């Protein structure tokens, strides 16, 4: 027995206009301080029914802690919304999930947001997610990451009840995404698809979505990077990224995420970059345990970048799109990294990704993969 869970997904050109068809009266828009005054927020506001009252919670920091959310929660409670609309990347969408849950249930603590607690949400409001990056998959997932203030560790909260009701994938929302973020978030999505495809929780639904996600992202990302306003290609990458999100949300991630979360938290590296850098080594490590599956995914990559094995194809692909494969390419001092590698191994060992990875990894295996991104002979 297992489940497939998904929001209602509205996608393609003009999908934002779907908002005007909904009965939205009091709307909280949750976004970050960079987007607060931006074109994308105006577009969302302009798509709402004219009578809707709007409050913008626009101070979500990157990787928010629960304490960061408390003042906003107070605002939200005073306003009494009937809908939450998250507009942004993973941090904004995750924050909206938490605000939504704690507005619905003021008696709960953020730590109650686990799959074993029945939350009974949706008595007062509902949740829409409109991603402005193509990669995190948060619009389609039932998880939310919350940092612990002053700690390197991040809490992974999860409940089927915080899965958004509606995800809107409008390519106009990502057309101005800067190149660096386009690459990082798309890399994250590729890691989601590949890890979910071999996860021990994989299933026919997550498989199908992962395969299609790889096809859409790898087939269209190079065109987006050449011509940022190629809206058709943007749309395909955007849809692919949400499919990758649905895929891992309904199966699990693996070792590249376990390592990437730890590395990203310690060195303040954007998520996509921090998981992408470990992917080729993780695939190499796992290969004997899932070679058929990896070979099948490899065959989906465009011919001009495909190598004999998936790990080599990935190196080729990441290199081609300009993603780092070694930490010195990120400007990280290798000695400093090597000194902290035990902490990375420690944090990675505590991540859930470690248990669903297709091959059991002990500390030494994790350390070897962590050190594979150091180019000591340079």
């Amino acid at each position: 027995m297992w489940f497939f869970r998904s929001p209602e997904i509205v996608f393609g050109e003009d999908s934002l206009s779907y908002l005007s068809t909904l009965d939205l009266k009091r709307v909280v828009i949750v976004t970050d301080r960079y987007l607060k005054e931006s074109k994308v927020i105006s577009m969302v506001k302009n798509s709402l029914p004219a009578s809707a009252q709007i409050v913008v919670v626009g101070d979500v920091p990157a990787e928010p802690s629960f304490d960061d959310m408390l003042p906003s929660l107070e605002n939200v409670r005073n306003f009494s919304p009937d809908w939450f609309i998250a507009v942004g990347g993973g941090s904004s969408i995750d924050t909206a999930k938490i605000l939504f849950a704690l507005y619905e249930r003021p008696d709960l603590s953020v730590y109650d947001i686990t799959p074993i607690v029945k939350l009974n949400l949706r008595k007062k409001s509902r949740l829409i997610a409109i991603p402005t990056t193509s990669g995190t998959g948060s619009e389609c997932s039932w998880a939310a990451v919350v940092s612990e203030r002053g700690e390197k560790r991040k809490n992974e909260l999860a409940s089927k009840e915080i899965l958004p009701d509606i995800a809107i994938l409008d390519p106009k929302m990502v057309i101005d995404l800067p190149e660096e973020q386009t690459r990082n978030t798309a890399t994250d999505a590729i890691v989601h698809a590949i890890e979910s495809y071999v996860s021990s929780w994989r299933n026919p639904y997550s498989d199908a979505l992962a395969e299609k996600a790889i096809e859409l992202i790898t087939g269209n990302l190079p065109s987006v990077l050449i011509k940022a306003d190629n809206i058709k290609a943007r749309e395909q990458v955007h849809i692919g990224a949400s499919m990758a999100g649905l895929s891992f949300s309904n199966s699990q991630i693996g070792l590249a995420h376990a390592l990437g979360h730890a590395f990203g938290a310690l060195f303040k590296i954007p998520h996509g970059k921090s998981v992408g850098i470990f992917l080729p080594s993780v695939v190499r490590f796992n290969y004997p345990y899932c070679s058929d599956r990896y070979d099948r995914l490899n065959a989906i990559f465009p011919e001009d970048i495909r190598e004999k094995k998936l790990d080599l194809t990935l190196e080729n692909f990441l290199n081609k799109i300009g993603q780092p494969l070694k930490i010195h390419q990120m400007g990280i001092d290798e000695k400093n990294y090597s000194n902290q590698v035990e902490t990375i191994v420690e944090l990675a060992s505590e991540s859930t990704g470690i248990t669903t990875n297709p091959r059991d990894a002990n500390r030494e295996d994790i350390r070897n993969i962590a050190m594979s991104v150091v180019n000591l002979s340079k």
Partner: protein
Amino acid sequence: MPKFPSSQWVEEYAKKLNENDAYKDAGKTWEGDLVFVVEKDQSFPKDVYIYLDLYHGECRKAVYAESLDQIPKAAFTYKGPYSNWRRLINKEIDPIQGILTGKFKLEGSMMKIMRYTKAAKEMVNTATMVQTEF
């Protein structure tokens, strides 16, 4: 070959757990005791309890009990019907998926458990190492 569940099985399980380096490693910061509750169902006549005191990768105490008052109160409880335990030990159910699908119930901090999924997996792996008769 010890029968599951029985005091012989629990004794053998605790021994194997203490010999399992992968568990020792994954559980090396864990502090807390737990109780496995094997609930009665069509194939098993009564509820029984397995109490484990786990500390820094070591099983310090393991008790098989047929009544709750024979064991200390534990920080965590993992319970499910006998038939599901059988499937868990035969690796047909993943211990965490077991919770999410309602085949097992967890009482205690899910947050804490989620940091020790590797240890949980090794605990199940260890159970498969015990030559078990059902």
